[in-house]
């Protein structure tokens, strides 16, 4: 099953468990709301769990679900970014509710499954939606998940790459199962975030 595999993630490079609370917004440490959009079943929550936990441990008592998770990422320039990651329900019937979630988000990850052309169409719908209604300086990433299933691929990376470029998005293919590119995804987003003016 997608993200419950036991491979440890390569997340040693700079994740720290800071327990800062609200007053952590300064030039060194800031936090950002990141919203996850994409069809149901593309592995949105698996990506986040991979990022946050490295591996999912079903016996852990700490996790109360993957719909909201936060994780602090330390960058090379010694700033830290605390991601507050908001998952959204991907089923068609809930599509109209998404604006409640992406309002005020500093970043968005739009996820599709590389083996599902429908999910890629849906991803394009979300991109348009965000361009129309999201905040204009939102950082957007297009993510082709389930890259480990490349023998079943139906969405070519070139097509997705080109689409992302046309829409000035960052594109990456990930595998929540093997943890491939998961940290790279979040690090890249963190780098692209506009840094708040020093206080």
């Amino acid at each position, binding site marked *: 099953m997608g993200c419950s595999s036991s491979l440890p993630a390569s997340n040693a490079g700079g994740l720290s468990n800071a327990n800062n609370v*609200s007053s952590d917004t300064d030039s060194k440490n800031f936090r950002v709301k990141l919203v996850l959009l994409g069809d149901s079943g593309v592995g949105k929550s698996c990506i*986040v769990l991979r990022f946050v936990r490295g591996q999912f441990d*079903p016996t852990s008592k700490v996790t109360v679900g993957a719909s909201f998770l936060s994780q602090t990422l330390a960058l090379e320039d010694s700033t830290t970014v*605390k991601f507050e990651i908001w998952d959204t329900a991907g*089923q068609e*019937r*809930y599509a109209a509710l998404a604006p409640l979630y992406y309002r005020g988000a500093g970043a968005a990850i739009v996820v599709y499954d590389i083996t599902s052309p429908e999910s890629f169409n849906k991803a394009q719908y979300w991109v348009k939606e965000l361009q129309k209604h999201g905040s204009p300086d939102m950082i957007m990433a297009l993510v082709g998940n389930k890259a480990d299933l490349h023998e079943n691929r139906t969405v070519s990376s070139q097509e997705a790459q080109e689409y992302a470029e046309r829409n000035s998005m960052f594109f990456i293919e990930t595998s929540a199962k093997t943890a491939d590119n998961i940290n790279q995804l979040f690090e890249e987003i963190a780098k692209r975030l506009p840094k708040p003016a020093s206080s």
Partner: protein
Amino acid sequence: MEGGGDSFGSSTAPLAWHDFLERMRQPSAAEFVKSIKSFIVTFSNRAPDPEKDSAAVQEFLENMEGAFRAHTPWAGSSEEELESAGEGLEKYVMTKLFNRVFASVPEDVKSDEELFEKMSLLQQFIRPENLDIKPEYQNETSWLLAQKELQKINMYKAPRDKLACVLNCCKVINNLLLNASVVSNENPPGADEFLPVLIYVTIKANPPQLHSNLLYIQRYRRQTRLVSEAQYFFTNILSAESFIWNIDGESLSMNELDFQRKMDSARERLLGLSADSENQDNQANLDAQDRKSENLKANRNSDARLSMKDHVQGSGQDMRRDSDVTVDGKPVERVQSISDIEKKGAAELLNDDELNKKFQEYPFLFARAGDLTIADVESLLNSYKQLVLRYVALAQGMGVSPETTLAQSSQPPSDLVGSEEPENVNDNEKSEGISKTSDDVISENDRPEALDIKTSEKMTQKTAVDPNDDLEALKDEAPCQPENA
């Protein structure tokens, strides 16, 4: 992993509230007390205007928190202490202003009624499948626990306490989903799983005045504390509300006509209930109900083919439950709700010669509070649990949802939960959120306007697991309930 830590905002220990009141009584706090009172008085004298009201409260709280920082008795306190002072202030001010600002404009009252009605219709036929809840996550019995958490929302006045009910409800759902995912070896649940269950639970719980409660939290919970995880889950219930407002056939994967028919027949059932209560003769009653329904149907829907007889009796495909229940071998014409049966029973009881005998089983029925001793608590609690268990079991067996007058006038079904609740539901966040203290200790001696609330029932702190808690709470919180709860 983070997340849990700041999840419920700056949760303060139960002690913090006492600490706040304690410090407010110190002579050095006299200026603060004066400002707070003057704010409350000025505010109360203005006509309601939700936007202005909200802005005024937010601004006042912000200013006061700033002032706390600089003056005794809080000067030099840690951030944590200042935070809990802010919480205390919010709770104090909003408890005082509650009656003035809660559902204070006609639009809100109207929305409450409409939403309540819509949910009371939907809850009669909605199925988990209609919302994309996968079979492995379906667990209606356990969802009752989440419903009970949400139904507590009208027991509190402080925005934070109301918010805690929403968060506790979400937490129960998350725990259930997580357990189910482990059992069925599924991926850990995300929003795809969570939101549909929250919507379902909300519809089934149908707490009165949900709309006003959510607006109240949004307007009067200090904005800097409605952030992060609390904000996320609060957004989820707002989005559940929004979804429910807009529910039509399509959003439940139903044919629109089919949906309208289900709504109509749910409405007829509710109307049937009110006809019932006016009429004690059973048979005549049912006939009258049929006629009434028929008229209504005819008025609303000129489609003559849908005569009431066909509709009600031959509609196994329509109302799932109709076919589940039979009496004397023939299908019951409509499922009666508990309150329906209750009313009928009450009418019969009035004519019953052996009334006293029937009530002998229940020794506390005619007791007054003063008659009870501490020693009675245990047996009272046992009787109570038995009663609730029977009641809920009966409701479950009937296939109707058990929240009726009993559930709304107090919090009994949560007692059923008491010992069975997953332990993390009862963790400290919950006990903090739920622990109740006397709101008006600050003014119990010398502040006359405080007499409006339960000064005589000062409570000591308790944890949520204390078996006596709910009994006390019931007594303590009853006056806080909005009128139509």
